Every structure is written in structure tokens, then in C-alpha cells.
């Protein structure tokens, strides 16, 4: 994993012209996770979408350091938002194989199967994704993270509609990712058991402080 750190430098995030997160600075080293907490509307999604590059920052910047130097992190991100990015008319394995091929540019059937296995979906591989339950669909959405390797995971409420066992699987996936030198930024209301690899950042309307 080539990314050594992700830093925000006085990053102010806007949504629709309104500043939601003013001048936030933090740095996450490889192997660490940053947990974003805060009430609804505190700017967790806006912050993640700004880092991913979907939203232009109002001021400040995001610096991702990799083996080639400092950049915006383009090509290093996986982003999981509130939607799962799966096609109901494709089978479970076709969905995950598509993302595997799209991100890595080559066929790797093992990577796709292992990603399904990690989220306990292997038994449903030939099943149509449209017939999955909410929780199963969420797991299929998350399987994209494992199907192709990328250093920085930006996860927006990843545990929504997951049951306890699936949440454990998500924790295992994140811990494994961190152990390999990856970085994760996770907004969540649940306590994810990530041990001391995680730092918590509380976002309160207009302010942020480390907890």
C-alpha cells in the first residue's frame, strides 16, 4: 500500500454554497482509522465527499502522500456512501466482478470470490442482486472494497442495515485493511471495534474536536 498519510489542511467544506465544515485540520497515518462522529447535519458526509473529490473544497486542501509525493489522492480512494452501487439485474458475483474488473483493469476471479466470502455472500453468488435483503445488499456494496485494493477507504455509515454478525465482518475487513498499511475514514453512529488503531473526531455544527 503506497499511501503513507492523508492530511486535511484547514479544509473548509461547503454544500450548496453553505459552509458546513469550517477550517478542519487533521492527519491520518498509514495503518490508522479516523472515526467521524456527530449529530445529523454536522457535515460527516460533506467532509467525506470533499475528500473523495466529489465536492470542491471551499478553502484549504487535502494532501495524500504516496510513494510519488504529495497529491490529491486521486486513484487511491474507495468511497461507500448511502447507496450500494449494485445492479439488481446482475447476479451477486457479476456485481462484484464488475467492480473488480473496472478498478483493476484485469480479471481476477479469486479476488471477487474472496471479497464475497469475507462478507458471507459466497452462497448467494449466482443469486440476482435485486432479490437480496437490505443487509445483504449492503454487504455486497461493501464487498467492492475488497475486490480491488485501494489504500484509502472513505466509508459513510457503512454499518447501516447490517446485523451484529455482519458488523463484525466489516470490523474484520477494516482491521485487516489497516494492518496492511491502509487508511480508513469512517463516519458511524455505532461503536466499531477497531482497537487503538482508531482516533475519534467529533464534528459539531461548525466545530470539530478530537475526543
Amino acid at each position: 500500500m503506497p499511501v503513507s498519510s492523508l492530511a486535511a489542511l484547514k479544509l473548509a467544506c461547503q454544500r450548496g454554497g453553505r459552509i458546513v465544515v469550517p477550517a478542519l485540520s487533521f492527519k491520518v497515518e498509514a495503518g490508522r482509522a479516523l472515526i467521524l462522529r456527530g449529530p445529523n447535519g454536522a457535515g460527516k458526509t460533506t467532509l467525506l465527499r470533499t475528500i473523495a473529490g466529489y465536492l470542491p473544497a471551499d478553502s484549504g486542501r487535502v494532501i495524500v502522500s504516496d510513494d510519488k509525493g504529495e497529491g490529491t489522492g486521486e486513484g487511491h480512494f474507495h468511497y461507500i456512501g448511502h447507496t450500494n452501487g449494485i445492479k439488481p439485474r446482475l447476479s451477486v458475483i457479476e456485481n462484484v466482478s464488475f467492480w473488480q474488473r473496472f478498478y483493476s483493469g484485469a480479471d481476477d476471479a479469486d479476488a471477487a470470490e474472496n471479497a464475497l466470502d469475507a462478507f458471507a455472500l459466497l452462497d448467494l453468488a449466482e443469486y440476482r442482486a435485486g432479490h437480496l435483503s437490505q443487509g445483504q445488499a449492503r454487504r455486497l456494496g461493501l464487498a467492492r472494497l475488497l475486490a480491488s485494493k485501494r489504500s484509502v477507504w472513505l466509508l459513510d455509515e457503512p454499518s447501516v442495515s447490517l446485523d451484529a454478525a455482519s458488523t463484525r465482518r466489516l470490523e474484520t475487513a477494516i482491521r485487516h485493511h489497516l494492518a496492511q498499511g491502509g487508511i480508513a475514514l469512517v463516519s458511524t453512529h455505532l461503536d466499531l471495534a477497531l482497537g487503538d488503531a482508531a482516533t475519534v473526531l467529533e464534528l459539531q455544527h461548525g466545530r470539530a474536536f478530537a475526543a
Partner: protein
Amino acid sequence: MNAFLALLTRDLTLALRQGSAIGTALGFYLIAVSIIPLGLGPDLALLSRIAPGILWISFLLSAVLSVDALFQEDRDDGSLDALAIGPLPSELIAASKSLAHWLTTCVPLIVVTPLAGLLLNMELNAVPKLLATLAVGTLGISFVAGAGAALTLGLRRGALLLPLLILPLFAPFLIFGVGALSGAAGAFSQSILLLGALSLFSVAAMPFAAALALRLSLE
């Protein structure tokens, strides 16, 4: 390039499994072509004279029917977010989508065009020429439509706005496409060259407009 092919194959698979978009366009095309003679009366000479124009206009209207869904589904289910941060530049995402539209909508329409020509008493020796103009011109049509679909993405009632936006842009395609079949000396070769130029220009330029619109729609 492999990511491009992965996206294109996925879209083709989805279109084939869904079937409804292709079916709607084909059905609309054949129905439009068969009710026009009912309105014009049983004048076979008139029909065969205006057949190329009727076929081209019906073709264009059928081709824009399903175009609003080109990016909409990917946006709604979150795929567009994931596509946008992948290895493929937005321009190539737009190009892949437009190409998929051409392969899944325009090519089937071209295939049934000889049958539609038969319904309009079109001269048999004009059919290959008509097919040639459609094959050359409609590739550009799909790319213009792709840019339009990206521009209206995320708008309420974007599906209604879209034809207003792109049908006027189809005018030059229509003029040269029908002009090629006017029967005047040299008209075919001149018109089809201009049609090809228009098409190539759209293929080269439209993905940039579409990419800009796609990036804005992610905000």
C-alpha cells in the same frame, strides 16, 4: 482501456437483460412509421418520395426515448460515485455510455429499418443508401444524446427537458441524412461525407461536455 471495456460490457449486459428500453424504442419506431401513412392517405408515390425523411425523423424520436436513463440509474444507485473515482476519466465514462446507447438502441433500429422502409413503399435500391446514412450519422446522435443526458442528470423532470435540449442539435444530422437520398447528382457522396464529419466531431467533442456535466452532478 480494460476499465472502458468492463463498463461497456456491463451496460450491454444490463440492456439485454432489461430489454424494455430496446423494446420501447423499436416499438415506437415501427408504430410511428406505420401510422404516418394513415394520416397521409394511400398515395404510394408520395409515400415512397418522403420515406427517407419519415424514417429519419421517426428514428431520431425513437432514439431519444430511452436516453434519459443513460446516467440516471447509475446516479440513483450510487454506481456513478464509484465510477467517478475509478481509473477511467469522466470523458471515457461518458464515451462508453454513449457507445452503449448506440449499440443497444441505434443498431437495433437500423436493423429493422428495411422493414420500416417496406411499410412506406420505399424503393428497394434506396434502402442500402439509407442504411449507410443511418450507420454513419447515428453514432454522432448517440454522443450528442449522451451529453444531453449528462446535462439534465439530477434535474426534476429532466426526461421532459432532454428532448427540447437535444432534438434541435439533431437538425444538421437530419438535413444531411435526408439530403444524401435526394437523388441529385453527387448528393449522396457529398452528404454522407459531411454526415461523417459531423458524427466524428460529436464523438470527439461531446464526451468533454458530458464529463463536465457529470462532475457537476456529483456535487
